[in-house]
C-alpha cells in the first residue's frame, strides 16, 4: 500500500558536517550525465551530476568537446592569417573575437583606425550582441518549456543575420573587422532596412514580455532559484549581465569605454535579485538597450568616409616584442584577448579570456549543489555560457 512514510533505510547518511557522505557504491546516489548531447545544454559541454532523489548533491562541469587548439593554431599563422580562424572561437557572437584581436594587433603595431571604421565596428558588435541575446532569450524560455519564444527569437535573429549578410557577405562568420578598419562601409539604404528589422524585433519583444515575464510558471520556476551571492562576484570573476542582475553595474562599455561608446548615451540595466528571473530580465532589458544603441549609432555615425587605413605588406608584417590586453563587453560579460608578440611575423601567444570560462566552471559548480535536476538546465542557460570560448 502507498504510504507517505518513506523508508529511511534507503536514505543516504549525513556526515558530521551536515553534508551527505557521497559514496556511489552504496547505491544511494545516482550519477547522472547532463550532456554532451542534451537539449537543455548550451552548446557542447556536460555536467556530471550526483543526485539523491530529485536533489543534486554535487555537480562537475566537463568541457573539451569543442577543443580545436586555437591558441596553438594562431601561433602557426601570420597576423593576417589568424582572422579566418579567430572568429570561430565563439559561434553565436563571433565579431567580438575579431574586434579584440584586431585592436590588440593595432595597438602593438601602432596602426590608427579611421573614425568611421570605429562606428561600423560598434555597430557590428551591437548587432552581434542582439543576435546573442536573441539566442539567450530563446534558450532560457526553451529550458523552461516555453518553446514558442525560441521560435520567435530565432526568426528575429534570422532577420538580423540578413542584415549581417548585406553588410558583410556572410551569415555567421563575417571576418569583417581587420586591423586598420573594416572591410567596407554601409550599403545604401541600410538604415531603412535595419529600422524595419528593429521594429519587428520590438514587436516580438512586446509579445515576449506578455508571454514570458507574466507567465506564472516562469515566475515560479525562476524567482529565488539559482541565487548568486553578490559577495561572490569578485572571487568567482562574475562579469556582465550575471553581475548586473545582482546589483553590480559592471559593464566594460561604461567602466572603460572603448570604440565610440563614450559618444553614445545609455544607462546599463541593473536588477537586484541575482536569481534566474533577474538574469533573464536583465538580458531582456539589455536587448532593448541594444536596439536603442543600434538606432543611435546609425543616426550619429559619419558616412561615406574612409573605413580602412593602408596596412604594411601583410606578408612581411613583423610586430615588435610586446604584450597587450584588449577587453570589451560581450553579451556574456568581459571578453578579452591577451596578445604577446616576439618580433617575428607570428603571434607568440594569444589567450582568449571568455566570460563563460569562469561562469561555466567554478561558478556553476558552486551553484549546482542543492538544486533540482529540472532546474539545472535553466540555471545553466541563465548564466548564458558558450562552451567554445571555454576550451577554444
Amino acid at each position, binding site marked *: 500500500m502507498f504510504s507517505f512514510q518513506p523508508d529511511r533505510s534507503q536514505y543516504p547518511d549525513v556526515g558530521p558536517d551536515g553534508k551527505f557522505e557521497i559514496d556511489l557504491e552504496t547505491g544511494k546516489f545516482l550519477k547522472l550525465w547532463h550532456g554532451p548531447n542534451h537539449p537543455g545544454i548550451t552548446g557542447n559541454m556536460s555536467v556530471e551530476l550526483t543526485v539523491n532523489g530529485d536533489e543534486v548533491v554535487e555537480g562537475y562541469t566537463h568541457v573539451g568537446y569543442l577543443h580545436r587548439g586555437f591558441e596553438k593554431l594562431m601561433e602557426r599563422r601570420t597576423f593576417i592569417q589568424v582572422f579566418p580562424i579567430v572568429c570561430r572561437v565563439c559561434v553565436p557572437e563571433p565579431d567580438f573575437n575579431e574586434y579584440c584581436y584586431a585592436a590588440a594587433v593595432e595597438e602593438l603595431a601602432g596602426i590608427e583606425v579611421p573614425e568611421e571604421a570605429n562606428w561600423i565596428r560598434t555597430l557590428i558588435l551591437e548587432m552581434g550582441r542582439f543576435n546573442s541575446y536573441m539566442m539567450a532569450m530563446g534558450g532560457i524560455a526553451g529550458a523552461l518549456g516555453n518553446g514558442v519564444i525560441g521560435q520567435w527569437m530565432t526568426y528575429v535573429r534570422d532577420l538580423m543575420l540578413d542584415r549581417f549578410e548585406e553588410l558583410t557577405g556572410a551569415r555567421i562568420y563575417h571576418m569583417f573587422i581587420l586591423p586598420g578598419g573594416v572591410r567596407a562601409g554601409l550599403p545604401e539604404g541600410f538604415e531603412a532596412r535595419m529600422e524595419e528589422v528593429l521594429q519587428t524585433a520590438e514587436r516580438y519583444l512586446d509579445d515576449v514580455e506578455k508571454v514570458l515575464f507574466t507567465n506564472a510558471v516562469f515566475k515560479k520556476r525562476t524567482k529565488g532559484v539559482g541565487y548568486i551571492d553578490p559577495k561572490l562576484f569578485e572571487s568567482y570573476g562574475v562579469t556582465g549581465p550575471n553581475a548586473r542582475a545582482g546589483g553590480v553595474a559592471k559593464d566594460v562599455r561604461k567602466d*572603460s569605454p572603448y570604440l565610440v561608446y563614450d559618444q553614445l548615451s545609455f544607462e546599463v540595466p541593473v536588477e537586484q535579485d541575482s536569481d534566474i528571473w533577474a538574469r533573464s530580465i536583465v538580458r531582456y532589458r539589455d536587448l532593448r538597450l541594444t536596439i536603442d544603441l543600434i538606432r543611435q549609432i546609425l543616426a550619429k555615425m559619419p558616412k561615406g568616409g574612409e573605413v580602412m587605413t593602408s596596412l604594411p605588406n601583410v*606578408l612581411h608584417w613583423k610586430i615588435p616584442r610586446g604584450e597587450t590586453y584588449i577587453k570589451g563587453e560581450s553579451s556574456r560579460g568581459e571578453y578579452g584577448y591577451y596578445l604577446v608578440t616576439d618580433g617575428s611575423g607570428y603571434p607568440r601567444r594569444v589567450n582568449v579570456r571568455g566570460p563563460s570560462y569562469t561562469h561555466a566552471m567554478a561558478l556553476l559548480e558552486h551553484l549546482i549543489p542543492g538544486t533540482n535536476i529540472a532546474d539545472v538546465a535553466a540555471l545553466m542557460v541563465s548564466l548564458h555560457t558558450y562552451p567554445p570560448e571555454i576550451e577554444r
Partner: protein
Amino acid sequence: MRDLIEKLTPRYTLGNATYQRADLTFVDVTRDELRALLLELRDKEGFTHLVLLTAVDWIEEGKFQLTYMINNREADQTLGLRLYIDRNDAEGDTIHDIWPTAATYQRELREMFGIAFPGSPRVDEEFILEGWTDMPPYRRDFDTLAYSQQTYVEREGRETHDPRATMKHKMYPEG
C-alpha cells in the same frame, strides 16, 4: 599607475614596468613575493577582479612567463604581473584560495603547459584533453601539424601551399 608602482617598489622587487596604455601596466614580480603582493593589491588597492591567468612559453630563454592579470574596476586600471619560472621543472604556487576561479586556470595550465600547481583542487584531473599521453600541446616544441599528420588520416588530393610563397606569386607574379 606609476604612483602605485613607486609606492610598492620599496617593499617588493618589481622590475621592468611597461606602461602599455593609460589603463594597462605590466610589471615583473618574483615568485616568493607574488602571494603577498596579490593579497595586498586585492585587499588594499582594490584590484579585486582576476581577469586571467595564463602562461607564455619563452623556449629560447628556457622560461615560462606566468601572467596574472588583475583589474581595479573603480580606478579602471588593469595590472599584469609577469612571473618567470623555470621551464624544465615548471611549478607555480596556487592562488585558488585568493580567487576560487583561479583553480580552473591552473587546471588548464597544468594540462596545456605542464606547469604543476601543488595544492590546487582537482588540478591533476583531465580538463580539456581526454586520453592525452603526449607532451602538453601548448608548449612551443610540440608541433601540432606533425602530430596531426602522424595521428589522423588525411583525405588524398588536398594540396597545401606555403602561404608566403603562394601569396607572393599571386600578388607579384613577375617576382
